[in-house]
């Protein structure tokens, strides 16, 4: 055997990259082919640009429009948008999608939902494919074994016009997750721990691949949550090699291959996992068996801490910039160092978003809420119409309603609040979303990121609570 002829070992990401380079350049960006591009109502800038240049969508069959950011969650009628301006954005998307000829999941479509829930659900997101979407949480689709990344409006226009994009190849990082997570600890807790370890800029310039023995214990929904929030460490993409869990999930879905094409695709997908001996510029290892349920205390997603702990003291930070940032975050969050996290009272809960609105997320929240009453107001927003339907078939809607929470129609809702679903100034929210930035859920609103089970535990006790103390006790 002549080893010199063998191609060097490559990562999953590199294999997908190599299959999609149209114009290679040794340094800087190469021209990459984009298999599938997903857009939402915010695309009105890209459409305007496209039309102004006299261009149309090159391959409408490879573009998918999903109404999620601006849609009301109180009904499926654009007239129920809280302002005329928001209604206009929803209607403009209707017009643009009609003009484009692309696939469209409108507010009235029985399969509408949040882009990053709908993508995998419809089989748009396939292993080995390159997916772009004009939303930063596009990294979600990496859990299907795809190379997926968020783009701005100008790049979205470029993809629509040419089905390509100029991209510099990111460095490769491997995050190894070992051990079996404890009951009550899931994908959200793991990714909050990863981001806390990396920092919000720790993965800038990287694509992150997750591997390790812990993956066998995690559901596909957990994996999607982890890849979703990988962007919060600054990464371009998060990926997990597709395995039987992904293949069996995809089988028979709308945009997944059928018949002989399925067999051919499966053979190819099985060749994609990273080769032994491939090079990662950085590696990180986490023993997930030691993790507790997490919550963030600050105004960046890397401030996740275990529920048993206390609000950290900035005085312990040696770096003056970090200390200043922590002090500002504590002031905004109205927290005092040393306070036990389990004594922090909340005013509202939000269960939803592209991070945590899938069926298993809703089940884990319902398991805690069943037979209990929430002592604060809150909304539960299913990730898609199909998730909503499945949840209702199991009676989860009745659990949420009996607990005193609202059961809403799918959309991004209170994660970003563009549709008007916001908390009130100075309220403290236990939120299953992905960003706790200043003002993210409304001016002056204090957001703590948690898992769906932890949000449910906080809802029924009125303060952050180790969900493990409530499990199986109803």
């Amino acid at each position: 055997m002549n080893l010199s002829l063998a191609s060097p070992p490559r990562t999953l990401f590199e294999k997908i990259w190599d299959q999609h380079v149209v114009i290679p350049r040794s340094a800087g960006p190469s021209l990459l082919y984009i298999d599938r591009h997903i857009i939402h109502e915010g695309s009105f800038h890209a459409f305007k640009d496209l039309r102004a240049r006299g261009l149309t969508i090159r391959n409408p069959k490879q573009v998918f429009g999903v109404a999620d950011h601006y849609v009301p969650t109180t009904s499926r009628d654009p007239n129920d948008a809280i302002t005329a301006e928001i209604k206009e954005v929803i209607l403009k998307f209707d017009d643009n999608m009609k003009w484009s000829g692309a696939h469209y999941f409108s507010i009235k479509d029985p399969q509408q939902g949040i882009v990053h829930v709908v993508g995998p659900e419809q089989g748009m997101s396939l292993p080995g494919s390159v997916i772009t979407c004009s939303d930063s949480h596009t990294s979600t689709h990496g859990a299907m074994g795809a190379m997926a990344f968020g783009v701005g409006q100008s790049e979205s226009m470029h993809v629509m016009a040419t089905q390509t994009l100029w991209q510099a190849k990111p460095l490769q990082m491997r995050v190894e997750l070992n051990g079996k997570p404890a009951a009550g600890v899931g994908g959200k807790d793991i990714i909050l721990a990863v981001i806390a370890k990396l920092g919000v800029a720790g993965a800038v310039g990287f694509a992150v691949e997750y591997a390790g023995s812990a993956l066998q214990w995690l559901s596909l929904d957990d994996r999607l949550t982890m890849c979703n929030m990988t962007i919060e460490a600054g990464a371009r993409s998060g990926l997990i090699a597709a395995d039987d869990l992904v293949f069996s999930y995809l089988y028979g879905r709308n945009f997944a291959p059928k018949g002989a094409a399925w067999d051919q695709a499966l053979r190819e997908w099985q060749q994609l996992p990273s080769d032994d001996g491939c090079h990662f510029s950085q590696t990180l290892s986490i023993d997930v068996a030691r993790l507790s349920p997490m919550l963030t205390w600050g105004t960046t997603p890397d401030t996740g801490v275990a529920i048993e702990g206390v609000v950290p003291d900035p005085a312990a930070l040696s770096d003056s910039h970090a200390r200043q940032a922590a002090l500002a975050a504590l002031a905004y969050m109205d927290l005092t160092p040393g306070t036990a996290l389990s004594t922090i009272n909340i005013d509202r809960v939000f269960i939803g978003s592209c991070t945590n609105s899938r069926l298993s997320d809703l089940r884990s929240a319902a398991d805690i809420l069943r037979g209990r009453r929430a002592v604060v107001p809150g909304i539960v927003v299913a990730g898609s119409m199909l998730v909503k339907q499945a949840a209702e078939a199991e009676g989860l809607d009745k659990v949420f309603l009996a607990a005193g929470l609202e059961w809403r129609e799918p959309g991004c809702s209170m994660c970003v609040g563009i549709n008007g679903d916001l908390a009130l100034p100075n309220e403290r929210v236990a939120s299953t979303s992905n960003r706790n930035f200043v003002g993210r859920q409304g001016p002056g609103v204090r957001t703590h990121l948690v898992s769906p089970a932890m949000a449910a535990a906080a809802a029924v006790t009125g303060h952050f609570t180790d969900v493990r103390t409530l499990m199986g006790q109803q």
Partner: protein
Amino acid sequence: MQAFTHVRALAAPLEGRNVDTDQLIPARFLKKNRDEFYKNYLFHDLRFDEHGAQRPDFILNRPLFQGAQILVADENFGCGSSREGAVYCLADYGIRAILAPSFGDIFFNNCLKNGLLPVRLDAKVLDAVRQTLLNSTETNDSAREITIDLAACTVKAPGLNAPQIFTMDPFWHECLLKGVDELALTLSYANAIANFEQQHRNAHPWLTS
């Protein structure tokens, strides 16, 4: 897109790491059309109080930094949401360049598409520049000016003894210098794209239907 060759302009120091795009433009303004006063939304909730009055402490509201066209920022500037509105409001406000040790990935790309120059420089160097700008009491703006020569990739700034050299990928360097976006170039590769696409479809027919 406006060509970027060089700029000499008043610079404002912006303290704080991880300035996210929600701070640059709160989500409630994203429904606005491109021609609807994006300059007013820049740092909206930091610049204005709940009654719409200017917050006098915010750096761009201070008399010495009003009209700044260059921002000197800290690590991971523009992290978070992919909203291009963050760049629209910077550009419409008149910001031509941002100096920072690192940028949010998507924000960096969005800058390049709008003729806004993102310059990566060493964190300690920029600490010194921000400190000098903050301590400046000169009434003449020229004491707080930064000069950027994009062709030479150099920055001259108060608080630095020598010009700093920065690096920029040649591809985007040329786009910015000429004031063109990359679409025309891509369209010139129409045949290469069509050929690639045909082969790609033959090899993976399930990806494009």
